[in-house]
């Protein structure tokens, strides 16, 4: 089968599209205001065709990237008529294309004369969008209304200008409006850079040439994925893993998957997974799909360009009203960041039944979300800090897991101590590898991290969303599991255990200590 007219033009345009997405990312973080975006790069950029299918993306955050097509499609559906040249639409609605409220997605149409031909879009995690606790990542919310402002797709940029009147509700909901405005301007900049770069490419290759390549790209990736999945035809497996808790009283919440490699297509079915829960680990459907796409891309898609074609052979069934496909007004803050990691563990667990040689043991299985907010005594103003912390990676056949690293659905950087202490009334006391926390094996799992932060602000609230505080990241082929994580608060010599999901008010001088889980080992450890 001939997949493309001219392989060199195909390759050149493919890479030009990827570098276009990369430049969008650069523009976004170089102009952003909050450390979570400018230092930790908690943001992603991509290019879509006129129907909202992913065409090319930058190397950012997996959980964002696989979920963004649904955001673009939601915009087309709900405000498609209004998306004229020079406009951009904003949304964060988890029940319609969004992931959780802090992730604001901005979508811009790209025009060839009077016809709309493509979209560019970016998603950035904002450090505060209102709700019960600073950081908008409450540990114990039970309704979406507790988590901040919900934005259905709406135009906020007109004639290439951000219209403040269209976001006044967002600016009044957030504790840090100045920072939000700066970050939103950065998001506008990213899309502007992306559109401009695409127009430049169209001058060189014509829109006809580009749009043809869009189609070729998807066809190529679909065909390549089909080929690598072929050897597994007829295989079938199921696996169940658990979420520790929902932060609202329920624990050991099952996620169950059945993977079936039928002829030419793979069926991934989450029947048997828990119904949606009261706490906030419900994972919006876009993030759930994104997690499955990630697993298949990582295991079977090496070297294959990432676009909608990669998952055209995968049929995913997620029962309605389950924790992986919740309905309004479910609380979802931790779903996108915590449950998504467990979807990966569960799906990998099933695939390990089929071929353990290609699957690593479980990684830390959490992002260790930490949000701290209150009043900065240096300025008297509100501050809102958010970060996630790396841990141990699972070992695989032939390699040890890395220590102190972000795995699977996220890849955000750490907050440099020097940035963190400059911007916030916080002080980092320890930032180290948590020795011997990785599971032993023929190949060892990676170690977690210890991070201790002293709080110097006033009226501060600490929110934690974490997992693998009860169930261990599993080993494979007789490899030992990783050590579970632990959250504590130290004040005046006393040590208090904090729950895996918690929101607490803390006095100045408190020290919060997060110990992140190790990864699982692979293969039987050598006997001493």
């Amino acid at each position, binding site marked *: 089968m001939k997949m493309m007219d001219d392989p*060199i033009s195909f390759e050149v345009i493919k890479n030009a599209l990827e570098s276009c997405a990369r430049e969008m990312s650069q523009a976004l973080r170089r*102009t952003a205001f909050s450390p979570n975006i400018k230092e930790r790069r908690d943001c992603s950029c991509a290019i879509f065709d006129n129907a909202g299918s992913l065409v090319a993306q930058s190397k950012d955050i997996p959980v964002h990237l696989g979920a963004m097509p649904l955001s673009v499609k939601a915009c087309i559906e709900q405000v498609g008529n209004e998306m004229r040249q020079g406009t951009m639409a904003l949304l964060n609605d988890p029940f319609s294309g969004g992931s959780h409220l802090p992730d604001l997605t901005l979508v811009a149409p790209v025009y060839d004369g009077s016809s709309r031909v493509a979209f560019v879009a970016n998603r950035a995690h904002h450090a505060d969008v209102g709700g019960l606790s600073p950081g908008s990542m409450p540990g114990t919310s039970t309704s979406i209304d507790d988590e901040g402002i919900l934005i259905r797709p709406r135009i906020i940029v007109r004639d290439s200008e951000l219209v403040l009147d269209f976001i006044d509700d967002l600016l009044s909901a957030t504790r840090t409006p100045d920072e939000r405005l700066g970050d939103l*301007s950065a998001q506008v900049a990213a899309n*502007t850079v992306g559109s401009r770069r695409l127009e430049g490419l169209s001058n060189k290759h014509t829109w006809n040439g580009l749009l043809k390549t869009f189609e070729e790209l998807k066809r190529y990736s679909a065909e390549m994925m089909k080929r690598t999945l072929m050897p597994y035809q007829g295989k079938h497996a199921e696996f169940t893993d658990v979420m520790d808790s929902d932060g609202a009283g329920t624990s050991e919440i099952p996620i169950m998957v059945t993977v079936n490699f039928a002829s030419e297509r793979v069926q991934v079915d989450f029947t048997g997974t828990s119904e949606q829960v009261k706490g906030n680990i419900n994972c919006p459907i876009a993030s759930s799909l994104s997690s499955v796409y990630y697993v298949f891309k990582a295991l079977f898609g090496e070297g294959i360009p990432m676009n909608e074609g990669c998952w055209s052979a995968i049929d995913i069934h997620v029962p309605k009203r389950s924790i992986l496909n919740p309905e309004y007004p479910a609380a979802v803050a931790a779903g996108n960041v915590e449950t998504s990691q467990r979807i990966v563990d569960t799906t990998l667990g099933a695939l390990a039944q089929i071929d353990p040689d290609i699957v690593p043991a479980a990684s830390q299985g959490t992002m260790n979300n930490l949000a701290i907010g209150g009043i900065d005594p240096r300025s008297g103003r509100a501050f809102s800090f958010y970060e996630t912390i790396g841990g141990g990676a699972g070992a695989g056949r032939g390699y040890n897991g890395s220590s*102190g*690293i972000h795995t699977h659905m996220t*890849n955000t950087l750490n907050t440099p101590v*020097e940035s963190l*202490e400059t911007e916030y009334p916080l002080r980092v006391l320890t930032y180290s590898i948590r020795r011997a926390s990785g599971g032993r094996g023929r190949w060892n799992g990676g170690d977690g991290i210890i991070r201790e932060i002293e709080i110097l602000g006033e009226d501060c609230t600490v929110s934690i969303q974490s997992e693998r505080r009860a169930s261990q990241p599993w080993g494979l082929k007789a490899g030992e599991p990783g050590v579970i994580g632990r959250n504590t608060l130290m004040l005046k010599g006393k040590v208090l255990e904090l729950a895996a999901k918690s929101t607490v008010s803390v006095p100045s001088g408190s020290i919060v200590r997060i110990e992140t889980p190790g990864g699982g080992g692979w293969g039987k450890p050598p006997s001493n």
Partner: protein
Amino acid sequence: MKVIGCDVGGSFTDIIMVDTDTGEQVVHKVQSTPHSQDVAVIQGIREILEDNGISPAEVSLVVHGTTVATNAMLQRKGARVCLVTTAGLEDLLEIGRQNREEIYSLQATRPRPLVGREYRIGVHERLDAQGNVIETLNDDEVERIVSVLRKKKPDAVAVSLLFSYCNSEHEMMLLDCIKQEIECYAVASSQVLPEFREFERTSTTVLEAYLGPLVLGYLGNLDTSLRQLCPKSKLLIMQSNGGTVHSSRASGRAIGLAISGLAGGVMGGWYIAGQSGVEQAITVDMGGTSCDISAIVGKVVVKPDNEVGGLPLRVPSVDVKTIGAGGGSIAWVDDAGVLHVGPQSAGADPGPAAYDKRGLEATVTDANLLLGRLNPQFFLGGRMQLNVDCSRTAVSRLSKKIGKTVNEVALGIIRISTSNMMQAIREVTVERGHDPRHFTLVPFGGAGPTQAVDIAEALNINTIIVPPFPGITSALGLVCANLRVDLMRTVLTTDPEMDAEEATSALNELTEESQHRLLEQGAEKQHITCEWSIDMRYVGQSHELSIRLPQRQREPLSASRHLFESEHERIYGYRMKRRAVEWVTVRVVARAKQLDLKPYRHDPLEGMNPHSQRDVILEDSSCARAEVYRREQLSVKQQINGPAIIEQVDSTTYLAPDWSAKQRRDGTLVVRRGR
């Protein structure tokens, strides 16, 4: 006066000598001495002087490109370093930024840190974000650190404490004491890279400590030997940024030489391309051991960061990619019976099988010899005999393993080596959205021109420009480089209360300091040019735009504000009304032209007949009679049609059928597809 450029490669050390009055160039090549590169450097300089009857006293300047630092990083053979860092953060080097390179790779790995855990020492002290002392560094603690260090017996010590870019007092206390008490190369982060972000600053400082002893030891030896040989000569070293520095000024700046050896090639290749009016060039510097590739569009790009062997370093560096593909790259067959070429190289010793120096492995050079592209009697202009039988024996060993003829294997070796290079070229062109078909190929290094047509065929490139002395082009790049000093200072001031005076005086002081350093290195005042720039951002951002200023602004800050806002709008599409602007870092780049290189002239002669003829094996395994020319005897405007071979002392250019070449007056050989 004579100026000498000396470039060390993995296999050969190349020397060029230029007469500053007449522009005359002579070249020479000796085998490299990898264990002490200076031995070959001195030998090469001595020989080029003797061969041309030049008195050593006539040499005023030697410019040197070295791979000492690069090799130490690639082979992990630098100094044994202890890191002294703020207690609680000893693992920073290991955690890095906690991210992975490939987002879909399940096997997320990072390079092993240069300093093992037991050599990372926490010191009890603490500053806050404004540089105020929270926990004092007392004498007992300094004493304790020194005694711990004494037991570890390091070659070098890197001191990197939190917030030292705001206040270097604690670092300096430690550094002074360490320098007094312990014999080692000691550096502090506030001197190496006074910038915020502790991981980047620390890893760059560690690298300085890792490379320092080796680089300084090497330069010291070389300087001593050179003084004995050419008492009147200065020694300048090529830096990663494409400019040179006096050898005595490298202390504390060893990382600035991280890719010294590569930068010369890029500058030389670009000099040749620029001379021919080429706007987009791919330079391919293929020596015996490796191949350095850069794609240049309009001008040589100097990046703020670089990476060697997975080690990040924040030092201005020219944009170049290296792969293990050279004439000495070894061909081998894996368990599955698949033929591979490189990245291992036979280097200079034992070298390819054809050198007949105990080397039994078949290399790219052996394949070229068997295919008739190289002349066994005229390698290095006949200074070295190649043994065809040894090549045949080596290649036939592979041919038995995979059941192909010797010629087929030789062709296969060339094809695979070409595809390895093609891969790297695609990375610097296609992957950045450039179409290689629109570029001109500039092949050099001893082995580049022999394989240039193969590379051009593979990438659909139509034009190749072969420099006058391909084997010596990197050395030429050294000779035509400028002295360069990059200075910066953090000023961090915000409007409306901006401290314009501090920034202005910083710029003036840095200008004076950089001029002073250039004068000290022997530059003449009228040849010095300075470039001012200020890194700026809106208050709240943490990445800056570098704004270039027309020099000697009386009020650089007010002048820059307007430039910044238009630049921000040009790049990002908006300016922020009513938002304060921040001036972060002022920078001065000072350059001094060393020498006005008179362009090389190729003397037009009457059209020459081919020197001889020999059989070459073509792509399809057929045999054809190729005409053989000598480069220096070609006349301008004479067209040579492939299959043909053009030999010269330092390289051999091969023309496949369907390719033709013309020698030009400026010394370059232009090779084109078609006749």
